[in-house]
């Protein structure tokens, strides 16, 4: 069952999962930018 159903989605228990996806995206962009400049 979902927890914190009374709270808006972004502030629910899913906040951490969403941030993990964003951080992983940023890491990939940084990595690909580095590859583009380094090679």
């Amino acid at each position, binding site marked *: *069952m*979902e927890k914190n159903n009374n709270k808006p*989605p972004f502030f629910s228990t899913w906040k951490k999962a969403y941030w*993990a*996806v*964003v951080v992983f995206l940023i890491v*990939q962009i940084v990595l*690909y930018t580095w*590859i583009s400049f380094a*090679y």
Partner: protein
Amino acid sequence: MSVLDWIVLFLAIVGIAVYGTWKYRSKQKSISSYLKGNNEDKWYTIGLSIMATQASAITFLSIPGQAFEDGMGFIQFYLGLPIAMIILSAYFLPIYYKLKVYTAYEYLESRFDLKTRLLTSGLFLIQRGLSTGITIYAPAIILSTLLHWPLTPTICFIGFLVILYTFSGGTAAVSHTQTLQMAVIWGGMLAAFFIILNSLPDNIGLPQVVKIAGNFDKLNIIDYNFKVESRYNFWSGLLGGLFVALSYFGTDQSQVQRYISGESLKQSRIGLLFNGLLKIPMQFYILFIGVMIFVFFQFNQQPLFFNKIEENKIKVSTYKNEYQAIENNYNNIQKQKADKIVYSFSKEQSEIDFTEINALQKQQLELKKQAKALIKKNNEGVEVKDTDYVFISFILNNVPQGLIGLLLAIVFSAAMSSTAGQISGLSSASMVDFYKRVFAKDKSDKHYVNAAKLNTVLWGVLGIVFALLADKAENLIQAVNILGSLFYGTILGIFVCGFFIKQIKSNAVFYSAILSEIIVIALFFSTDIGFLWFNIIGCVLVVIISAVFNSFFKNTKA
């Protein structure tokens, strides 16, 4: 192809189709079980099923070829996808679950009215119905060209297998066969990586591959220059890609059906986020395989033109001597270049001087240009872009026996998994939004299951017919994306008004959607705007025009 290749290929494609048909043959007694698999899917089935529906055979034929020719910049197309997964997971998914919808368009009736639901579902049916044909046609034309299989039976064979298990087992059969097909695809792609790496000279490992690819500009992954007309750059990828992904995953029934069949909201959310995490690395890997093939051909004889059928035609034409001279020259330069690269890397120096190698590469590119011009001169209507043939040519000519079957199974598995997802989505939308809602209300569950099965067969047959009628596109994957982009923006705009702008009423959104679609099509034919931007333009137009129209129309429904 050897007997072993045929056995591997047969087991991978027919075996999975027969398994899907047999396992789910008699379990689909209600419309809920046929269209939503009784809501039994776990997050990993949902995640893999979403990825398998999106990754068609075109993905595995075109993308390595695209990296081979232009480098890895295509990955930018996917940069907005993870953000889209978060927005869908936070805002779209809870509403679909709350309303217990069978199609995304059902929501639009509860928010606006029936005509808006039917318009949006209709746009989906046109757009997806056409692209299903391309999904079947694209691999069939390439496989039939290279393997000398007749085109019509190849298209019918792929189409028939997909119809068989989609008809018999509905959504559950589609999702579960997709997980097996993804296993075949990834087994094959991993094998491809090691086959290429092992085929390189002894002193060339992964670090050297990266260095060589970088020298030939194949690793220019991110381009921060903002150009409206450029197809792939960081900004169009992040913004345009976000809108494409929101439209495709949030409003395209072939995808929505995958995650509304989850066991719970939580399982569906994890499935979507799983896609958000893995999609870009997956595309990176597929593109990198293309780059590795490019490096492989720095040491091995690279065909002057990868489409052998067209090459054979010019070799018996009046231009045969000219073409032969170009080919001999090309092959000589190739040998010199390979020797120079091997020699450079054998000296164990920290900095490799690529000056001479680059000069030879430039000569080769010039010769290739001349060869293409000659092919065009010989046959005016021929497509001289041969990148879609790169990966499959590599498989057929450079891979050990037994593994050819496995790598060809990638293409077939991807074609089937993607087509199955699309046919099942089309069948749901036409059955639930049109047949059940408009033409045959209040019938029994059994009646609707039979109607859904009939719809599945009809859409499957229509896909096969479109595939048989389809003509060659400039680049297959881009043709599908462009087609999608012209409708996706408008469809997304309708959903954005529904989800986020409470004041907008049904008549305003309905007429603004029609007007916006006309404007988008007019802009496509009259300007050079990169196709990714049409997703944003279509969506923004619907929102703005709806807001303007809202003050003119009076509705009873909010």
